[in-house]
């Protein structure tokens, strides 16, 4: 009947927390009449929502898992929407002396210093990126598996950490904001997405007491993809409306809005759609 067009989207906290969605979605609703309910959470949980058919579309940043999601038939397709970038932040006095180095070198120096490193440790996109960089830097990750095998499936609940850091590697299993506050408190290094960093540094009365020490490296790209859930898996998904959202985001208007969005006067996201 006169059902309102509402779709459900699970996304990572970074898109919602940055305020970007508040700038985009009202415009989308104006253009199409479709409202979007947003559920922000960790990347893992957001993808899980898609797999369980709880939402119509997901908007996340973890390339490897996004591909797997499509491969397993949960996603209809993936569109590259935008990227921002990661930065390595740390205390002003930079005890490991990473300033000016490329990111692989920076991680190596951290490993060889006495400094603490804070890891998100929550299987988020940022966490995946961090592990990737340790790899590039040539630092071996020790893996520890919890032996919980059921029904032939071995869940990936192991815990990976750079062996050399040992006690200096603090895995907190929390969101970006918490990781930044933690790093500030301990005056430690961490890998952060630029958007959240800017918010914490310039969005508050007492800005974050950490500086960007390494940025602009090719390895620090952070692409966001949008994936409508596959209607063949869940027939009662609102695929058409989800499809319109995905297409709208990569449209000229959508891309311009993304490019124009600023956090404290600084551009935070860079459109990725290829014309």
């Amino acid at each position, binding site marked *: 009947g006169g059902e309102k067009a509402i779709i*459900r989207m699970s996304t990572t*906290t970074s898109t*919602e*927390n940055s*305020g970007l969605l508040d700038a985009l979605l009202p415009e989308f609703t104006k253009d199409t009449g479709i409202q979007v*309910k*947003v*559920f*922000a959470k960790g990347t893992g949980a957001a993808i899980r929502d898609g797999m*369980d*058919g*709880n939402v119509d579309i997901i908007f996340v940043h973890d390339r490897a898992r996004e591909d797997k999601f499509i491969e397993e038939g949960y996603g209809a397709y993936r569109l590259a929407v935008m990227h921002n970038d990661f930065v390595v932040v740390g205390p002003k006095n930079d005890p490991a002396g990473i300033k000016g180095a490329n990111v692989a070198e920076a991680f190596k120096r951290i490993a060889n210093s006495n400094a603490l490193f804070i890891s998100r440790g929550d299987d988020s996109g940022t966490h995946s990126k961090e592990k990737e960089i340790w790899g590039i830097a040539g630092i071996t990750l020790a893996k520890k598996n919890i032996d919980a095998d059921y029904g032939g499936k071995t869940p990936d609940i192991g815990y990976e950490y750079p062996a050399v850091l040992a006690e200096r590697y603090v895995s907190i299993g929390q*969101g970006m*904001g*918490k990781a*930044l*506050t933690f790093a500030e408190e301990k005056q430690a290094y961490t890998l952060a997405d630029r958007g*959240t960093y800017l*918010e*914490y540094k310039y*969005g*508050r*009365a007492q800005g974050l007491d950490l500086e960007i020490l390494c940025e602009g490296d090719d390895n620090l790209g952070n692409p966001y993809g949008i994936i409508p859930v596959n209607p063949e898996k*869940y027939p009662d998904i609102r695929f058409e409306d989800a499809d319109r959202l995905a297409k709208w985001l990569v449209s000229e208007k959508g891309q311009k809005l993304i490019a124009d969005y600023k956090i404290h006067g600084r551009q935070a996201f860079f459109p990725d759609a290829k014309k």
Partner: protein
Amino acid sequence: MDFLFDSLKSAVLLLWSLDRDLLIIVSLSLKVSFFSTLIAGIAGIPLGLAIELNDFRGKRLVITVLNTLLSLPTVVIGLFVYSFISRRGLLGAMGLLYTPKAIIIGQIILILPIITTLTITALSRLDSRYRKTAMTLGANSLQTALVIVREARFGIVAAIIMAFGRVIAEVGISMMLGGNAKGFTRTMTTAMALEFDKGEFTMSVALGILLLLISFSLNIVFNYFQGKTGD
């Protein structure tokens, strides 16, 4: 300390602004908490009565289990309910997930043990002569139960206040089962969690203070009525 002061100021400003979005959030919080407390009360008080007033095998085990359920983490409740109401679950077709109803279901599970155990506690030390008197005067089971509840009202009201406080301040279940969707399932606590995640600590605490103010007003009303029912 500036921070606390700022928060207080923001809370006042928030309240003053009567912002429509804020009103939606506040009213959702109240509605959800009200219904979950109401339903859990309607179920939990008679359950507590039934357990306390009857002698049956395994009674102590039941009480021990109820006490254990007081430490049921919200994540477990959230996931448990999720497994039923998510699209893949038994009740998936009802489309409950990420609605206020889902929050209410989860919160009922959270506070049912609270209300039940506190009802049992309230009754257990009640003078047994009240029950005997009601019975000898010819009251049937229901009438006897009503007498007992009235005599134990202080403890039962405390159970209700405790349960209400628990749910209105609760964030885990609201987040997991409601999803914190703006305009739909965002409650005061999930909004606070969001502001916190965004690093907007001041706004987060301002919302918290608002919540406490609302709770304080409710408690004043409550206290007034409790005072009227005599000491």
